């Protein structure tokens, strides 16, 4: 005789539990509306706050009745933790919502095909575009990449592979550098390069400042990735008669490839929306400038700043549209970084 045993989940919530949980939420919502009506508390935050408070109290009481004081504490702390998570998500969601609401009316196809050289701030939305800003941002990011990726990765290699005498101080400096305000990087390039040497705005000046900001991000992320590579592999390479350089180049770096890619993308995301040094060093400009070494160059942050300053309703919409494009650009980069980093680093 064979009996078939159906798989069950005795630990799963029963439908009665679910109804109870749902009713708790309903009661809390009700209570929060009531509280806002009766007390002087006002605004969206008041709803959220009273909701969480009442939910914590109700679940706490329910747990206390059914399972006693420890369970009540557990339930209340669960709610507080959820509140923390909600508080993190709220501003982000709010920002995205605002940018989408204000930026979407300004999005149109010619945004990506024309620049602002033939348009004034008061022109209708459909004239002019963002091409100069998008190309300017991309040009400067690429230039900054060319300079910062080798420096950043070499720094990480010094810290993890060579482990030289100065590894400690350098690690400390790199960490300190990642806290340097961007305006400081901008002023540094302004006073050290632009005024004494080139005496003119250009994309290169902006890229130099962005490089300063990007190196610490790339160096630190790369260092962490390289530390994840098992020491076995380095030993195996050396035991096969490889020099340290050959071992690093042939085994360590390829094994860390996807992680290093992530480091680079995080670096790009760090600088793509950087505004202060751009304002100081690039000179803006409304025309597509393909030459990063000569003349003012536009960029998304500069364009947004300039449009907000222009103040006309059309210019404001353009600024929001620019913000939306910039955020999408950064979002795409972050998604790419996550996709790359979720792949295993080794094996």
């Amino acid at each position, binding site marked *: 005789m064979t009996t078939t045993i159906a798989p069950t989940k005795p630990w799963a919530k029963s439908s009665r539990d679910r109804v109870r949980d749902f009713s708790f939420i309903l009661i809390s919502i009700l209570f929060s509306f009531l509280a806002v009506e009766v007390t002087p508390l006002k605004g969206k935050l008041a709803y959220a706050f009273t909701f969480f408070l009442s939910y914590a109290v109700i679940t706490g009481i329910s747990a206390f009745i059914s399972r006693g004081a420890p369970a009540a504490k557990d339930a209340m702390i669960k709610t507080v933790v959820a509140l923390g998570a909600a508080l993190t998500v709220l501003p982000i969601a709010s920002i995205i919502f605002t940018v989408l609401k204000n930026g979407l009316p300004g999005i149109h196809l010619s945004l990506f095909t024309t620049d602002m050289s033939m348009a004034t701030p008061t022109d209708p939305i459909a004239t002019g575009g963002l091409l100069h800003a998008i190309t300017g941002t991309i040009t400067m990011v690429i230039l900054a990449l060319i300079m910062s990726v080798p420096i950043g990765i070499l720094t990480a290699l010094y810290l993890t592979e060579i482990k030289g005498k100065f590894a400690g101080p350098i690690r400390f400096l790199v960490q300190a550098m990642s806290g340097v305000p961007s305006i400081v990087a901008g002023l540094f390039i302004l006073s050290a390069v632009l005024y004494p040497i080139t005496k003119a705005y250009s994309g290169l000046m902006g890229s130099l400042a962005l490089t300063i900001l990007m190196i610490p991000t790339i160096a630190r992320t790369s260092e962490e990735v390289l530390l994840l590579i098992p020491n076995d*592999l380095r030993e*195996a*390479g050396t035991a*096969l*008669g*490889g020099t340290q350089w050959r071992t690093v180049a*042939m085994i360590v770096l*390829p094994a860390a490839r996807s992680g290093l890619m992530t480091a680079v993308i995080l670096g790009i995301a760090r600088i793509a929306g950087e505004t202060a040094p751009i304002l100081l060093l690039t000179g803006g400009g409304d025309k597509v400038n393909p030459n990063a070494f000569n003349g003012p160059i536009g960029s998304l942050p500069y364009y947004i700043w300039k449009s907000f300053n222009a103040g006309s309703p059309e210019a404001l919409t353009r600024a929001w549209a620019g913000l939306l494009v910039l955020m999408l650009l950064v979002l795409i980069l972050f998604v790419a970084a996550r996709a790359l980093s979720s792949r295993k680093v080794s094996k």
Partner: protein
Amino acid sequence: MIQTPESEKDMSTPAQPSSLASVASAKPQRTQASTAQGTGLEARGIHAWFGKNHVLSDVNLEFSAGSVTALIGPSGCGKSTFIRTINRMHEFIPGAAMAGQVLLDGKDVYAPGVDVTKIRLQIGMVFQKPNPFPSMTIGENVLSGLKLAQLKVENKDELLESCLVRAGLWNEVKDRLNTHGGSLSGGQQQRLCIARALAVSPQVLLMDEPCSALDPGSTLRIEETIRELSDSMTIVIVTHNMQQAARVSDYTAFFLSDGGPGEMIEVARTSEIFSQPKDQRTENYVTGRFG
């Protein structure tokens, strides 16, 4: 008599010592391989330190060309440290220091001016944990030593096949040389690492507990490989498995640490170590009374 490898603890039954000895003597006595390269390896007065910690004291051992020597002893007695001094991997650890000489073909590998990468080409190493290079395919893994050391060979495909055949892996991987090494089982990965070590044709092969992470079947396969390889090279194998020592080695050296630095207590033909050890401590260890 066929025995599957067991953990050391199972050897405390009285019947075991004599059976280990019979395993050791049941091996066909090999005539010393004439095809082996070089004139052998000798360690003279090897000491090793980690920082101020003296871990290995005055080890003198001779490995004749084409022999298999097993190093046995409890954990922490310096066996692994000893073989890492032979191919100069010891210096990789921060704070490491050593004294003594390692003579390969009569020349000290620690002499000033010696190219350490050349030493490691002549003295290959297989590690405890299989460590194929994750970014390379099976074929690239085998040939990676050539690329690392920037050596040129006439016929890469031939070398690839011969290394995999000698490591006993060819039949299992010949159809998927372009897949990644990570897709192999643990035992196959370890044989891949052996093939990788063979590709640069070392004259000495050091093996640091090569089977400790493997199942009995893979272990037997690798032991066969070791016996086949001993025709052409000198092999030093660290093992915690005394049956393995009895099965594969010509000579066995017993290491022990009594709280202080590790020492080499006794070395002799493997059949002697397991049947009539001279030192009481060796006898205690091989009969499973401690360790």
